[in-house]
């Protein structure tokens, strides 16, 4: 008899992606959109929410279909499901804000190949009933959105002196050119990883792990 670990409570399931397994800060997954679209907080938030929608929707479908999908074609099935949701998001953003659509560019379509989504479908949704699967996907998506927003805010504040388009420092602000360029993404991500790891370490010291 193999000892089953205790089933996580719904709250634990939801919080997993936000803190313990945060896709950006802990798993370092999906770095392509993380680097590319985080030059402003609005772009980052939109990308985060779009990914959350695709993640949650595909988790629900994959979980519902988990007994009917043959093992041999499961990856192809997941991709078709994910691609359908990405198409929905693609048209939705285009209809809501063409400006945002052009700013995000190909990265909306590229959500299809975001490894977080396929990873969650394979590792979690295909093995769990719909409710935990959706809760977990929602947490993961929001964790991803929080990560993107953390990067996007810092880069927009330093790179343009604005946050969500609002000027923070007046007209004389000196923009830090490097922050809206690719190197700035790496600097800021490094800074957040440093902070996140330090916090985790401190938490671990305060209350020893189970």
């Amino acid at each position: 008899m193999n000892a089953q670990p205790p089933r996580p409570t719904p709250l634990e399931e939801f919080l997993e992606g936000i803190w313990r397994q945060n896709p950006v800060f802990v798993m370092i997954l999906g770095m392509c959109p993380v680097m590319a679209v985080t030059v402003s907080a609005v772009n980052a938030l939109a990308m985060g929410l779009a990914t959350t929608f695709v993640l949650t929707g595909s988790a629900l479908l994959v979980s519902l279909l988990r007994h009917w999908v043959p093992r041999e074609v499961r990856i192809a099935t997941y991709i078709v499901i994910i691609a359908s949701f990405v198409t929905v998001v693609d048209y939705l953003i285009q209809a809501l804000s063409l400006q945002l659509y052009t700013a995000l560019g190909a990265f909306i379509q590229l959500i299809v190949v975001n490894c977080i989504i396929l990873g969650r479908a394979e590792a979690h949704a295909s093995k769990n009933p719909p409710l935990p699967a959706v809760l977990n996907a929602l947490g993961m998506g929001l964790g991803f959105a929080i990560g993107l927003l953390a990067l996007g805010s810092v880069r927009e504040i330093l790179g343009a002196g604005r946050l969500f388009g609002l000027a923070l420092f007046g007209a004389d602000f000196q923009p830090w050119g490097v922050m809206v360029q690719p190197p700035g993404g790496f600097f800021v991500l490094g800074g957040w990883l440093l902070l996140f790891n330090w916090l985790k370490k401190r938490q671990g010291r305060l209350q020893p792990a189970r």
Partner: protein
Amino acid sequence: MNTTRLELRTTPHIKAGRTVEQIMRAVLLTLVPVCAFAVWQYGLSALALIVTVSVACLASERLANRLRGEASTLGDWSAAITGVLLALSLPPGFPLWMGAVAGIVAIALGKALFGGLGHNVFNPALVGRAFVQAAFPAAITAWVPAYAPGRFAEFIPSTLTPPLMQPPEVSAWAQAAVDGFTGATPLARWKYDGVLTPATDFLAGSVAGSTGETGAVLILLGGLYLAARRYLDWRIPVAVLASAALAAWLFQLWAPERYPGPLFVLLSGGLMLGAVYMATDMVTSPVTPLGVWLYGALIGVLTVLIRYFGGLPEGVMYAILVGNALTPLIDQYTPPRAFGTGGGR
């Protein structure tokens, strides 16, 4: 029982008197005349910049010590050297808050994250400079004239820019202060206007440039002293300067009307400062005899190539950073032959 004590130790058995602190202190001392000359040229602003950047570096080093829970490493003087060198490589009218950013980035990103002195891959001062070059490209190319009349009474207008704010335009102020000032370094004047600055101007220090790069004679004298005391590897500056001169000479042979001579290449920009004080950083330069020559030659040739074909007029900083990045590779492929092994065909 007979208990003769036999003390066993590993090598080295004979230690030279040189310690890190001693070498660093000597390097810092040789930088004092360069700083003094810079203050004489640019007045209060240069002094304020050198002090601000150094304080930012020392404070970041102390904070890094605190976070790592280790004893203070301010006493090895390396953070102070980073600060002074960084300040000398910035324009004299550089806003002080940007100088502080450069200093913090230099120590935090360029040194502390790697684990402190001896573990860093890149020269910390150049990491700081490269960061502000990418972040504030306009401010770092705003040059002011040397020997402005009121330099000991007032600051250059851009120096006291409030933090996070854009520095004011200095070209009008500079032209009013010194008649006929063009606002460009000799390298930029050559690159964009085709005007060659005579060598006498360089020796007098009356050209526009970074705070410490125009005192070429003092830099060379400092380098000679350090080389004589064996505090720096004389082969690195020699290799850098010789290869830069050789490359410049070859280009001049090929197209004399287009390229300036070796003397211009040697005297202009930050080549002297970079070759003597930055390329020779013991942590980030190779240790093997052949590797040292390769490293120096690479920096010299790269500098000339970047200056002639790159987008920016000056290339010493990037050349040295590339050299730093290749140092582990150079060391690995140029091991000296141990006596009695190999060879013998």
